[in-house]
């Protein structure tokens, strides 16, 4: 039995539908097959880690999860409800429930840290300016940036920018957060502060899907590691099973080469 099917069977026995469920997602971009009928269920509180070589489809797969990229085929469901990618209202609702952290932060350049966090609360959730900024300050406190609230992105370090981006996502009370190589654009000495915030989130039970090359982090915290290559999930399992010293998995091979660099 293919792993996806075994997974689907397991899910019928759980009382709650998965927080996020991707079914047979396929997409071709520029004549190249980027995702080849990929499926994934994410249960509440899980941290799924996507690894694999660049161009393997990790980023596109993540962007299909909040439908920033519309797949050619397949379905996305949040808490059991399938989302129609052409229904704009449903799309906006889905994206409020699915936070996203980008590799290059994408803070709004014209807004201070606190306004970056507050703007979606005001414009999307319709909160008052006061309420939105109060909530924003609370979220900045969670990522340890209360004192940077009034700085513009140009005056923040990469690590601080990424922490503001995390606060911005958290402020929307998402059911799941997608992280697309959140530390890849950072100077090595800034990686730790961002990973610490993500670690706290994982420990507080936030459901997350993260593409990363930080294998120590993945090994310590992932509920499951998914190895993606050429548009397929070719291996999946707990860190223990995939990375055991005697396992001859593609994942282990890849990680050994990462470590050698």
């Amino acid at each position, binding site marked *: 039995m293919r792993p996806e099917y075994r997974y689907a069977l397991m899910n019928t026995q759980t009382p709650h539908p998965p927080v996020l469920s991707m079914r047979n997602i396929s997409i071709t971009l520029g004549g190249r097959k980027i995702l080849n009928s990929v499926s994934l269920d994410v249960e509440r509180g899980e941290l799924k880690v996507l690894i694999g070589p660049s161009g393997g489809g990790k980023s596109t797969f993540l962007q299909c999860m909040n439908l920033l990229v519309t797949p050619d085929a397949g379905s996305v469901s949040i808490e059991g409800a399938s989302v129609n990618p052409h229904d704009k209202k449903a799309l*906006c609702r889905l994206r409020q429930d699915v936070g*996203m952290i980008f590799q290059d932060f994408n803070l709004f350049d*014209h807004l201070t840290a606190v306004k970056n966090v507050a703007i*979606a609360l005001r414009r999307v959730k319709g909160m008052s300016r006061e309420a939105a900024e109060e909530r924003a300050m609370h979220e900045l406190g969670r990522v340890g940036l209360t004192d940077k609230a009034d700085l513009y992105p140009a*005056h923040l370090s990469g690590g601080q920018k990424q922490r503001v981006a995390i606060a911005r996502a958290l402020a929307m009370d998402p059911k799941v957060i997608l992280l697309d190589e959140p530390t890849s654009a950072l100077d090595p000495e800034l990686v730790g502060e961002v990973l610490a915030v993500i670690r706290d989130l994982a420990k507080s039970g936030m459901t997350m899907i993260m593409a990363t090359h930080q294998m120590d982090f993945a090994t310590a915290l992932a509920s499951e590691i998914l190895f993606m290559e050429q548009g397929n999930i070719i291996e999946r399992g707990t860190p223990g099973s995939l990375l055991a010293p005697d396992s001859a998995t593609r994942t282990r091979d890849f990680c050994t080469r990462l470590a050698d660099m």
Partner: protein
Amino acid sequence: MLSTMDFFWERIVPNLDKGLWLTVQIIAPSAIIGFLLGVFIGTLRVFGSPKIRKVMDVYTAIIRGVPLVVQLFILYFGLPSIGIYFQPYTAAVLGFILCSGAYHSEYIRGALLSIKQGQLKAAYALGFTRVQTILWIVVPQAVRRALPGCGNEIIYLIKYSSLAYIVTCMELTGKAKALAAQTFRFTEVFFAVGLYYLFLTTVATWLLAWLERRLSIPGFGGKSR
């Protein structure tokens, strides 16, 4: 005959001051509404549906491709033949708004295209609609980037506002021309009117520099606060 200095203070200044006020009344609405129109058209030219984009591109091409004098002639002398009558002032202001809107839209369009895709993606990922993204994320950034170019257009506007006299709107240039024709003292009168325009553009330059400072944000080029 009055000496040059007496002629300047007794005839030129009182005459031109009357025209100056009308010139300011032409420039102010043309600059403000023209800029807003430019932001609107520029945004449609980048984010509108293909059909709207085409329409706006054609509008810009026509306005930029036809001399402003000809446009004013059409508004004031041409349209009455199909039953549309404008006061001289209205025709002039309308002509200037349409004209500067087209030019502003080009600066805004360039600025909009320079906004990184990541900014839009981040907004969509937070649940912003397309219109909200444009309104709250893209346009505020683009306007800041376009401001130096748009300021340039406003300086141009101050000078091409002198064309209003062609549709019998007696602003600065109109007053000057009438006085010169009356007194045959062309050199003094036109030299003086040149100084009046230089004064206007200098004030506008200060205002624009102040506005740029007011709106400046670290990371948006130029000196940050």
